[in-house]
């Protein structure tokens, strides 16, 4: 029996198959489901039904299963900053912060203390080892690739992380689950922010935490062209739901939290040739050589574009729509993740 591995099981098909694959390859596997959220939500991984699915899959695989209650930390490190970010006009990615603080933060720490050699998840990404260290490579199923939300993993985390389903396409994952008769084989994917229910929606959730402040919608010249009920409904680059009809396509150019002002303009007005990034991390521990050509990805399923890193500024080879502050900019060399950062205001 090989070294013990702790698998984070959400109750979904990917992590169910991740656990199954590790069991099949002879690992000493233990499953854990994180209870992250105490509030109401129908879309996330914290409902009793999802925990029960994870527990039943673990029982079917004949592995121990635990529930870790990280709700306090999740509120402090993921949910509260999410609400604060929107209130300050940013567009946060809570899945990224959850991976950083929960799965590859607190869970990894606890796994270490309990003597587990590795932590596995159901993420679609591939881990490679070479003489220069560990690398994270896009998942075999490019349409499902999740390396972007794992941009913060460094050598310390990559040494312990395992992504068993990263080598498979989603179709293969489901086929595998069906072959094993796992109850999660046909379970639909969760697409939404796990702590916000579909019924409630983002704006009502945010409104319950930070009172919405109505304000003006202005054009690029500062002329008031409309009004809004709160900036939380707007993100830079957004085209729909602006509540303003100008006859031509308009995009959100800027969200100013201090004055609750939303600025809109044409797609040309939105283009930028650079973006400043914060909280830079690099898988290798140090940045790639200056002006080394990179592929830059600025949203979870966006197409990467050419560019390079210049200190804490990413520069695009051709102008790109402005990156909303709070969004991740991930750097790739081909399919290999080099690191990333968070777009600054």
């Amino acid at each position: 029996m090989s070294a013990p591995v702790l698998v984070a099981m959400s109750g979904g098909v990917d992590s169910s198959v991740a656990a199954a694959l590790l069991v099949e390859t002879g690992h000493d596997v233990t499953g854990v489901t994180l209870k992250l959220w105490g509030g109401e939500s129908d879309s996330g991984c914290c409902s009793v039904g999802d925990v029960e699915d994870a527990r039943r899959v673990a029982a079917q695989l004949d592995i121990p299963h635990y529930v870790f209650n990280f709700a306090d930390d999740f509120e402090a490190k993921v949910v509260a900053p999410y609400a604060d970010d929107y209130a300050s006009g940013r567009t946060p990615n809570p899945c990224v912060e959850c991976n950083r603080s929960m799965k590859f933060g607190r869970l990894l720490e606890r796994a270490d203390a309990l003597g587990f050699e590795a932590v596995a998840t159901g993420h679609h990404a591939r881990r490679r080892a070479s003489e220069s260290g560990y690398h994270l490579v896009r998942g075999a199923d490019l349409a499902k690739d999740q390396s972007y939300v794992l941009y913060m993993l460094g050598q310390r985390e990559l040494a312990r992380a395992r992504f068993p389903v990263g080598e498979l396409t989603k179709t293969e994952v489901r086929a595998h689950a069906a072959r094993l008769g796992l109850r999660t084989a046909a379970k639909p994917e969760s697409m939404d922010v796990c702590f916000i229910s579909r019924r409630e929606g983002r704006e009502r959730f945010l409104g319950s935490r930070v009172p919405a402040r109505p304000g003006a919608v202005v054009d690029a010249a500062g002329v008031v062209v409309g009004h809004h009920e709160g900036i939380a409904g707007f993100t830079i680059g957004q085209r729909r739901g602006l509540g303003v009809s100008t006859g031509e396509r308009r995009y959100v150019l800027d969200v100013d939290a201090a004055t609750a002002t939303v600025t809109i303009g044409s797609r040309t007005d939105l283009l930028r040739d650079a973006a400043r990034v914060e909280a830079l991390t690099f898988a290798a521990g140090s940045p790639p050589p200056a002006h080394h050509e990179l592929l830059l990805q600025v949203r979870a399923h966006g197409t990467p574009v050419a560019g390079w890193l210049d200190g804490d500024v990413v520069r695009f080879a051709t102008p790109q729509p402005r990156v909303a502050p709070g969004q991740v900019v991930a750097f790739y060399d081909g399919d290999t993740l080099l690191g990333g950062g968070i777009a600054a205001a």
Partner: protein
Amino acid sequence: MRSDALAYLDYAATTPMRPEAVAAMSPYLSDVFANPSGGHAAARAAKTALEEAREEIAALLGTEPFEVVLTGGGTEADNLAVKGAARAARDAGRGRGVVTTAFEHKGVLAACDHLERDGFRVKRVAIDRGGIVDLDDLAAALDGDTAVVSVMLVNNEIGTIQPLDDVAALVRERAPQAVLHTDAVQAVPWIDVAAAAAPADLVAVSAHKFGGPKGMGALVVREGIVVAPLVEGGGQERGLRSGTSNVAGAVAMAAALRVTATERAAVVTRVAALRDRLVAGLAAAVPDCFFNGDAARKVAGNCHVGFPGVEAEALLVALDRAGVCAAAGSSCSSGATEPSHVLEAMGMARADALASIRLSLGPPSTDADVDAALATIPAAVERLRPVGAARA
């Protein structure tokens, strides 16, 4: 199923059935299967068994057979007592006040929350640092509008025995119209409930805590005490708990209670010695550990211990991986460990509460169980300390 490879230290959660109880119930699962409410010979046999079981339960609980209402467990008995007595009082115009303690079992607390939503005034009396109800606070909470008072006999997490005589004296003096309920679920294996719960009007017990089957309990409803039923139907259990009688469960509960009462003195002496050895061993091996609940006032099977800087949730996993079964806080439906409302009610710092676990012994406990705990816990605490310390 108890495996010899496991050191089971979670008897406050549940116990294995006594062999006597298994043997006693067996005929009533097959041969004597009839519905005791029927009018034929088969029904009469079942009815006789049910009523003999009730008589035995009543005798062992120091009450009369007609005062024993059989229920589907302790939580149901608590709900019937608290909601039933409060609603009956309201219907009779006898007040809308409910007084309980902050560290009751959820079966009582959730029932009180429900009554509060229905317009009752609920007061939750404070608990002192040792885990004993604050009698001054109780006295202040009682008044002429108090309809129901619910104070547990033994706390399920820290094992402290509550001064029910003193509680009853205060209730009779300050709220003579009130009905006094006690949740005695955790008391039966360790103290003579017939005597200890004598001053209460309503007494809840649960069979699986003393070697009986799960899903079987009873509420003692003393003569003259009115409670409104929760479950209505065929009018079984004097109309207080409708539904076809669980004859096998009642017979098994009676058998388990009989054995428990017969062996209680010897079990208490033996288990207290085991528990004391466990406590001494932990104190010696982990000098900064702390014990929760007044040691002089707790039942023999309870050891509630905290390890500064160690997350109980992680410690329980480490123990489980080493074959030691223990518990912390109370389990919610998802299985996650929630911070203990009992320790919070006692005024413990949240960090200390989250660093505490319950090791509960029972009649089957052995020296080997204590040896396993002492061989495992100090090492696990040592290994987990850096994580907790880093977070402190």
